[in-house]
C-alpha cells in the first residue's frame, strides 16, 4: 500500500485506498465511486486520471455497441530479450496485473448510432508501449475502417515503442503510418485523441496524423522525455512544455477537450467527417493490398512452414 500525506491531518484509516484516490495535482482525496461517476476527472481541480481501455470505451461508445476484435493476440519474445527481467516474464506480469493481453483494444462500435471503428490504448499494460501486437491492432483497425468505409478513432496513451521488441517495435511506426496513409488516400477520416501520456514512437507515428487531433487537458504529449529534452540542451524548458495546451498553441492539436465533452465533440466532428463517396486517387485507393483486413495476411501466414 503506498503511503501518502493526508490533508488536514485526518487519520490514514479514514481513506482506505480501495475506496479513495488522492488527486496528484491538488491532493484532494476523492471517493472512488464519485471519481468514476465523474469519468475519473478530479471534482476539485479537473485533473484527468488515466483510463483503462474498457473505461474509455464505456465513456465514448454507445452501451454494448463495441465488438472487440482480435482480443486473443499476444506478444511474443522474438529477440529473447532480457533486461532486469525477461520480456516474457514482464508480459506475464502485465497480463496478471491488468487482465489484458496487450496495450490496445480495437473493434467497431457506435457513437449515438454513428458507426465507427475504434482503437484504444491502455497505459496500464507495460506503459501502453507499442510492440507488434499494438501495431497490428492499430493497423487492423485502420484497414477495417478503410474496407468498411467507417471513420476511425484512435485514443492514444503510451510511453512509446516497446523496447523489448527492438526494431520490430520501431517497424510498427511504419506499419501503422502506411495503413493510415491508405486510409487517407481512400477518403476515410481519422480522428486522433491524444491522452496522458502520448510520447515517443506513438506520438511520432499514427497519433500525430489525425485529420483532426484532439488532446485531453494537460496531457503530457511529446517526442522525447522532458528529462532528455532538458538534458540535451542546457536551458530551462518552456512553461507547460509538452502539455496538451502547448501542443495546441504550436498548431499540432485542433482542440483541447475536457473528458466530459469528448463524446459530444466526437459526435459533432463525425457529422462532418464522413468517408467520401468517391475515392480520389487511382492506384492508392480502396482496399488494402492484404485484402479485407487480415485475410491475405492469414494466407501469408499459412504459406510459412509450420515447423522450423
Amino acid at each position: 500500500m503506498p503511503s501518502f500525506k493526508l490533508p488536514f491531518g485526518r487519520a490514514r484509516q479514514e481513506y482506505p485506498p480501495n475506496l479513495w484516490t488522492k488527486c496528484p495535482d491538488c491532493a484532494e482525496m476523492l471517493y472512488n465511486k464519485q471519481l468514476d461517476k465523474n469519468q475519473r476527472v478530479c471534482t476539485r481541480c479537473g485533473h484527468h486520471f488515466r483510463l483503462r481501455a474498457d473505461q474509455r470505451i464505456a465513456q465514448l461508445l454507445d452501451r454494448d455497441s463495441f465488438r472487440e476484435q482480435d482480443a486473443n493476440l499476444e506478444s511474443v519474445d522474438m529477440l529473447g530479450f532480457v533486461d532486469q527481467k525477461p520480456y516474457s516474464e514482464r508480459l506475464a506480469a502485465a497480463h496478471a496485473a491488468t487482465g489484458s493481453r496487450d496495450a490496445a483494444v480495437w473493434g467497431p462500435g457506435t457513437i449515438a448510432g454513428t458507426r465507427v471503428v475504434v482503437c484504444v490504448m491502455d497505459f496500464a499494460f507495460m506503459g501502453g508501449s507499442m510492440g507488434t501486437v499494438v501495431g497490428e491492432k492499430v493497423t487492423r483497425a485502420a484497414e477495417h475502417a478503410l474496407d468498411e468505409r467507417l471513420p476511425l478513432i484512435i485514443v492514444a496513451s503510451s510511453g512509446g515503442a516497446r523496447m523489448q521488441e527492438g526494431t520490430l517495435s520501431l517497424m510498427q511506426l511504419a506499419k501503422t503510418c502506411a495503413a493510415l496513409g491508405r486510409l487517407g488516400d481512400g477518403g476515410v477520416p481519422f480522428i486522433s485523441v491524444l491522452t496522458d501520456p502520448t510520447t515517443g514512437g506513438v506520438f511520432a507515428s499514427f497519433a500525430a496524423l489525425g485529420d483532426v487531433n484532439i488532446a485531453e487537458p494537460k496531457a503530457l504529449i511529446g517526442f522525447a522525455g522532458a528529462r532528455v529534452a532538458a538534458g540535451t540542451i542546457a536551458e530551462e524548458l518552456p512553461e507547460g512544455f509538452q502539455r496538451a495546451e502547448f501542443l495546441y498553441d504550436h498548431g499540432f492539436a485542433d482542440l483541447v477537450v475536457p473528458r466530459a465533452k469528448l463524446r459530444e465533440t466526437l459526435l459533432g466532428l463525425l457529422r462532418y467527417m464522413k468517408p467520401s463517396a468517391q475515392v480520389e486517387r487511382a492506384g492508392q485507393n480502396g482496399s488494402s493490398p492484404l485484402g479485407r483486413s487480415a485475410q491475405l495476411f492469414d494466407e501469408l501466414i499459412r504459406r510459412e512452414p509450420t515447423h522450423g
Partner: protein
Amino acid sequence: MVEQRTAASVAVVEPTPDELRSAIWARVQQARNVKRPHTLELIQSIATEVIELHGDRLFRDDPAIVGGFCRIDGRRAVFVGHQKGAETDENIRRNFGMPHPEGYRKAIRLFRLAERLGLPIVTFIDTPGAFPGPASEERGVAEAIARAIMTMCGLRTPIVTVITGEGGSGGALALAVGDVVLALENSIYSVISPEGAASILWRSAEYSQQAAAAMRLTAAEQLALGVIDEVVPEPPGGAHTNPEETARRLRARIAAHLDALAGRERKALLDARYARYRNMGEFAIAAESGEAQPQRPGLRARIRRVLDAGRNALVGGEGETNDPTADSTDEADVQRTGEGS
C-alpha cells in the same frame, strides 16, 4: 559458458556473454566512428554528379539532413540522408546528425519532388536520433517524423535505403522506409539508443552494453529479423579505412536494386512496400483456454537460430556460410534474408 549446438546449417562455437557484449559494443563504436564516411562523402564517391538542394520551404534549411540530385552509374536519382560532420566544428553545425523537424520536412519536399519528376530515391541513414530539444518539440518533431514515414510509405517511386552508420529510432526510420533496405556491415539499427534503453530498463546508463546486446542492433541480427534485406560488407578495418572501396560496394548494390525496382509496375511496387512493413513483427494467438498459440509455429525458433548465427559471426566464428565480415566481390558479398540463408 561455451556450449556446442547443432542446428540446420548453423554449427558454431557460441561466444561467452562477455565476448558477445564486447563484440557488439565494438560494432556500436564502429557505427559511431566520426571518421566513418557520412552521407555527402558517400554520395560524392558513389555518384558521378551531385547537386545538393536545400530548404523545407517552411522554416529553415536543416544542415543535419542533406539531399539533392545524383547520378549513379548513369542512373538519375534523388538522394536524402542524415549528415554528421567529421570535424568538431562541422559536427556542431550538423547538430551531430540530429535533425530538427525542418530536416524531415525538407526530406518530404525532396521525396515529393522525386515522385513528380519520376526519379527513384536513395536514402542514407546515420543519426543518433531526431534532436530532442525544446525547439524541436515546439516545431513538432514527432509530427514531422510521422509525416515523413507516411509519405515514404505511399511514395509512387522506388526507394532504396542504406543504413550506413547509426540507425537511431524514429529519427532514422523517418528516412528509412524503403522497397529495399540495405545496411553496411558495421551499422546498427535500434528502437532507442543503448544508453537510453539502459537508463530506462536497467535504470543506469552503465548497462548500455547489455542493452545493445539485448536489442540485437547489429546489421547481421537485423538481417535475421528481416528488418533489413541485405548486409553490404565493409573493407577490413571498417568503412573509414577505405571509403572508396565502401562506396564502390554500395554503388554496385544500389545500382542493382535501382535497376530491379525500375521495372516494377507502380501498384505492385506500392503493394510490395506496404506488405514489407505490414508483415514486420510477430505475435501469437491465445487459445480460448488462455494459453497462447504461436501465430506462425516454429518461426520464432527459426528466427532465434538465425539471430544466433548472426551473433556468432560478430565474434568471428569460422566456417559460416553467411559471415558478413567476409570480403568478396559485389554480388557474392551479399546475404539475402529468407529461407535459404
